[in-house]
């Protein structure tokens, strides 16, 4: 037996799903089993990785034995760990859900794609090489597009196409920035770049290009145009992973680049990001409130919630690491809550055969677990205590008020109120009787519980912050010392 501290958990997080994807691809009959087992193993691996990080600190692995700048470096700190854990938590629920959701023909495509997507996400969160990140981004994007279109249908195909064009545009713009940085500093390694970077036109251009590309993928207002169509039209588990994980993946890269390379460049950029975030909160929430279809409502809610992540940028210079802790926490709780909401919305859609909000027709008693999941996740989205969303918003609001950014604070509060308005609009209709009652479809238990467990987790996050922050501090991802 190899002692578990010597097991290379980090690399396994990438290799395991890759190998499993190949297996599923070659022998589709084994797909479901392979998928489920791999997901469990990945959970174990993230646990092992966390344990390793806690014992040994920063994870660095020179792939191929070639040190940077020649080789590619894997890099894992507290922030990577958080993202990996988020992926695994959401992934477990999606795996549980998808087991019953897809028919045999769809499953044959779903499982290898899903495993490849997991591998790509894990690779993304563990990479410190901006060109390698480009490849992982493309993997993530293409896998997502294929998944959105998996069940066909006009809306989904249109959504997938729009998403594909946006994601390709984003990647290429990002790559152009990578090219400039490489030719300026002779490396694509983030750690080395951080040492070599100075204030030159190249850095500004790279910030503009990479930033624009990543923000397009993150769907920050006004680059969100592709998101509602894609997120709302995809099959439910895919919607969940798009909103929960994919926008976070590109945000994660943006955050990394910002922290390491671009933060010194300027408060003005940060202020601009903050303002865009604020507009995103208001616009997204308002649009969500106006929707008559459940999945579109949830999708617009994602546009709004992404805004919260960016509101933090102008506050960061003065607030320090604790604010980024808050942002990370918000990311995590949004991931869990939003995945829960999409899964629940998927159940409601399947149950009634439609997702018209005004005709939810007593879903509270007819489909109580899913409705409860939706409402509980909604609590976290609103930022009402006790929930993960509350912790994140508390830290953001605290920083905004402390530094006198009253406008941002007001927007955050108004966003919370609008969120409660659109969520309770749904819940309200779920209590009342509507005229047309089509024959309900039965929903497998696994699909209901997948949603509820995620929602409960997003609430429980309200009580785990000190513990999570301690893990986040590993490797000091936000500078300024561990909290």
């Amino acid at each position, binding site marked *: 037996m190899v002692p578990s501290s010597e097991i290379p958990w980090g690399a396994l997080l990438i*290799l395991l799903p*890759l190998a499993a994807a190949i297996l599923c691809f*070659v022998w589709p009959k084994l797909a479901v089993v392979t998928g489920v087992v791999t997901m469990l193993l990945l959970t174990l691996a993230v646990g092992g990785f966390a344990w390793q990080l806690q014992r040994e600190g920063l994870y660095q692995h020179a*792939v191929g034995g070639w040190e940077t*700048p020649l080789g590619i470096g894997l890099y894992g700190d507290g922030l990577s760990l958080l993202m990996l854990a988020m992926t695994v938590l959401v992934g477990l629920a999606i795996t549980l859900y998808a087991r019953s959701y897809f028919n045999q023909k769809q499953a044959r495509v779903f499982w290898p794609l899903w495993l490849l997507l997991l591998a790509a996400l894990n690779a993304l969160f563990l990479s410190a090489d901006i060109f*390698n990140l480009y490849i992982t981004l493309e993997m993530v994007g293409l896998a997502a597009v294929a998944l959105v279109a998996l069940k066909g249908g006009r809306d989904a195909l249109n959504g997938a196409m729009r998403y594909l064009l946006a994601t390709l545009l984003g990647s290429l713009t990002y790559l152009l920035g990578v090219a400039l940085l490489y030719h300026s500093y*002779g490396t694509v390694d983030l750690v080395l770049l951080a040492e070599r970077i100075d204030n030159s036109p*190249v850095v500004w*251009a790279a910030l503009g290009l990479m930033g624009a590309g990543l923000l397009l993928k993150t769907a920050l207002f006004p680059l969100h145009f592709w998101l509602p169509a894609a997120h709302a039209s995809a099959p439910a588990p895919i919607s969940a992973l798009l909103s929960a994980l994919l926008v976070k993946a590109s945000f994660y890269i943006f955050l990394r680049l910002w922290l390491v390379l671009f933060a010194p460049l300027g408060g003005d950029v940060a202020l601009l990001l903050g303002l865009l975030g604020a507009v995103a909160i208001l616009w997204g929430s308002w649009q969500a409130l106006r929707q008559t279809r459940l999945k579109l409502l949830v999708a617009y809610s994602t546009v709004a919630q992404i805004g919260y992540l960016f509101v933090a940028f102008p506050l960061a210079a003065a607030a320090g690491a604790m604010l980024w802790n808050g942002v990370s926490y918000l990311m995590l709780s949004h991931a869990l809550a939003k995945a829960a909401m999409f899964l629940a919305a998927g159940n409601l859609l399947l149950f009634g055969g439609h997702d018209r909000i005004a005709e939810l027709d007593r879903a509270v008693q007819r489909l109580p677990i899913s409705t409860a999941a939706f409402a509980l996740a909604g609590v976290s989205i609103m930022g009402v205590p006790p929930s993960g969303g509350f912790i994140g918003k508390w830290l953001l609001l605290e920083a905004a008020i402390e530094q006198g950014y009253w406008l941002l604070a007001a927007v955050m509060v108004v966003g919370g109120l609008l969120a409660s308005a659109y969520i309770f609009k749904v819940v309200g209709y779920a209590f009342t009787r509507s005229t047309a009652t089509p024959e309900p479809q039965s929903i497998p238990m696994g699909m209901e519980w997948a949603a509820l467990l995620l929602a409960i987790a997003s609430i429980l996050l309200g009580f785990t912050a000190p513990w999570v922050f301690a893990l986040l501090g590993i490797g000091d991802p936000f500078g300024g010392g561990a909290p």
Partner: protein
Amino acid sequence: MEKVTLLIMLFDLLLGLGLLWLAWQLLESRNLFKAVVLFVAFGLLMALAWVRLDAPDVALAEAAIGAGLTGALLMAALAKLPSRDKSEPLADEKGHWLLRLALLLVAAGLGYVVHSLPESAPGLSAEIANNLASSGVNNPVTAVLLNFRGYDTLLELMVLMLALLGVWSLGIERSTREEPVGPVLTTLVQFLTPLLILVAAYLLWAGADAPGGAFQAGAVLAAAMVLLLLAGWPLQGLLTGVALRLMLVAGPATFVALAGLTLLDAQLLAYPPQHAGKLILLLEVAATLSIAVTLAALFLGYRPRTNKEPG
């Protein structure tokens, strides 16, 4: 000497302008078929540019993949579009002056940035030169692709697999056209296919020391298969099921297996120097096979099935 430099500069200038002009033409062409043809020409011109920039490996890849296969993919897709779609009028462009201005400013800004870069930058040439000996190959590009940054390539093969999965899930099988294949094409195929296979083998073998390698070889091999498909050879009926899938994953699987084995040893994808050459060759052979079959399958556009398999 002076004159030669001047001539070359003139050539570069013309080539650059030609690329821009072709790009404009192909993007603004009213007729989509013409646009696709122009795109192929654009790809070939790009290959020329790669040669001018001392990037023969890229030139080969561009010619085979960028121009050749992409062109074939575009043609095939165009054929599947409803016919009235093929020469749509262009969008009304009067309102786009603001966008044009913005893009012009962006381009100017980027141009300024590029101009501000130092005349000479070492990049990673020195590191590559120092480590080439222990990489197992002599072609620096191959060394980067399969050794120094082999991890990128591993993921890249996965991208191909992903795309194929997507195409298989979306593509709709069409009844093969019953139009008889002309004798010219048949002859051409009969002549070209063995030649392409030979070229592929050469590229694969030469990749270790000279321009070439798995991607180029795979693309050329794929081109051969595409030709056979065009000539009406029922490849999709011959190669199906597990056998096909095994060929498709040969490259990625070898890569992942190697990654796993090296990880057991110590480090992800760290080859023992004495075996590096052989391992890379093994990887390249497997990758060539997978790339070729994958690209050809992408061209085919749907999942080939045996008669037994359900639809």
